[in-house]
């Protein structure tokens, strides 16, 4: 599903990711921990095809990147720090726009609006909604096309407990055993993150400092990454 071998990504002279190698099987959840600037977001953007690796090899959904990126797009859902939505448009207009890009029906949009409990506010411009509501629309956007690989950058930020409960089924592993969903989640919450993880990656200054099955990771080791 995901195979990284010696992945390097630079911004100018600075290496944001150095020598990252890992393997994530279909249906597994990889949770990435690390302080700000450790390379978590960069890793998600490389996996989503938005950034290229400068060295090493990257394979996502069985396709080699960047050569076969076209075959990966549309099968990946990215929830980043930015909602990737237009502030001037309403939630419904934004989702309908994305539905058209992914060749999905308007019914799918209504279904997702209902799933994030925003049907009654769907015709208000996004700029008038609260941060938490915009985060819910962003989750609806990222999962609109039911992606096989879900890349979530701190998905619980800006969400109250009720909203977390609401979106849990949308960003979960999925209930269809014939189509298991693989997830890569970046998190700063050791206990919350570990409860979701099959595999844990700890990054420090772009380098892997921890890579192990979640069951064998102690929360103290994650806390150590931030010291």
């Amino acid at each position, binding site marked *: 599903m995901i195979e990284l071998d010696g992945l390097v990504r630079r911004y100018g002279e600075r290496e944001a990711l150095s020598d990252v190698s890992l393997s994530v099987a279909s249906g597994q959840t990889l949770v990435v921990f690390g302080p700000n600037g450790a390379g978590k977001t960069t890793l998600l953007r490389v996996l*989503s*095809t*938005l*950034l*290229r690796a400068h060295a090493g090899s990257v394979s996502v959904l069985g396709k080699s990147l960047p050569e076969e990126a*076209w075959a990966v*797009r*549309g*099968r*990946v859902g*990215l929830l*980043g720090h*930015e*909602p*990737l*939505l*237009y*502030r*001037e*448009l309403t939630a419904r*207009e934004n989702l309908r*726009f*994305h539905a*058209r*890009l*992914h*060749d999905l029906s308007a019914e799918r949009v209504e279904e997702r609006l209902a799933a994030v409990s925003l049907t009654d506010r769907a015709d208000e*411009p996004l700029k008038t909604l609260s941060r938490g509501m915009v985060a819910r629309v962003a989750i609806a*956007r990222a999962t609109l096309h039911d992606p096989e690989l879900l890349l979530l950058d701190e998905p619980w930020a800006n969400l109250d407990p009720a909203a977390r409960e609401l979106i849990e089924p949308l960003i979960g592993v999925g209930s269809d055993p014939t189509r298991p969903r693989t997830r890569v989640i970046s998190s700063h919450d050791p206990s919350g993150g570990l409860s979701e993880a099959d595999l844990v990656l700890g990054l420090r200054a772009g380098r892997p400092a921890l890579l192990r099955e979640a069951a064998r990771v102690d929360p103290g080791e994650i806390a150590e990454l931030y010291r």
Partner: protein
Amino acid sequence: MRRTVAALLRKELLVELRTLESVPGMSLFAVTTFVVFHFALNQNSVSGDEAAGILWVTLLFAAMLGVNRLFVADQDQGGFDAFLLAPVDRSAMLLAKALALLAYLIVLELVAVPAFGLLLLGPSLSQALPDLLVVLLLADLGIAVIGTLVAALAVRTRARDLLGALLALPLLVPVVIGGARATSPLLGLTHAASPPIRWLLTLGLYDLVFGLIAYAVFDFLLED
């Protein structure tokens, strides 16, 4: 492809209708420039080469305002990333943005050309109008394609406003020359029967060449 272009164009026009960030600014700039020319030239009316020059330079600089804003919402609000993650032909964005810019230019000219006729032009505009529309359309196509190409290149840089103008203006000089030369006889004191065909062909050829260049390179401009 058609469905994607329609979705992108619809989004583009909706965002512009809600923000009014491009077209009103472009139109106001053009009208204000004509007023400034009216006083600066210290004459009541212009015609021929002078009129064509003033019209095209003003339209070009007004168009630059729209060019500089063309991708700003996409870049600042993440629309670029969302589009790049979708399984669609990326040329759709080139086409949709160029069509949106073309629409902005047409609205600009609906305001600017009559204002030019009222404020500066000596000869009557009504006689020249049918031929002028042909010249405007050909020049607009060139501005739309080149403007979209340059805006996509500039928007990811820090000095996007400066870089957009620095890249676009040299590339648009032939459009201004072609537009002005084709328009000049139409705005003379003795109205010509039609614009010089060679300048219309020059504009058409320039549009075609840059249309093909833009189609060939646009995908690479969107890549990391």
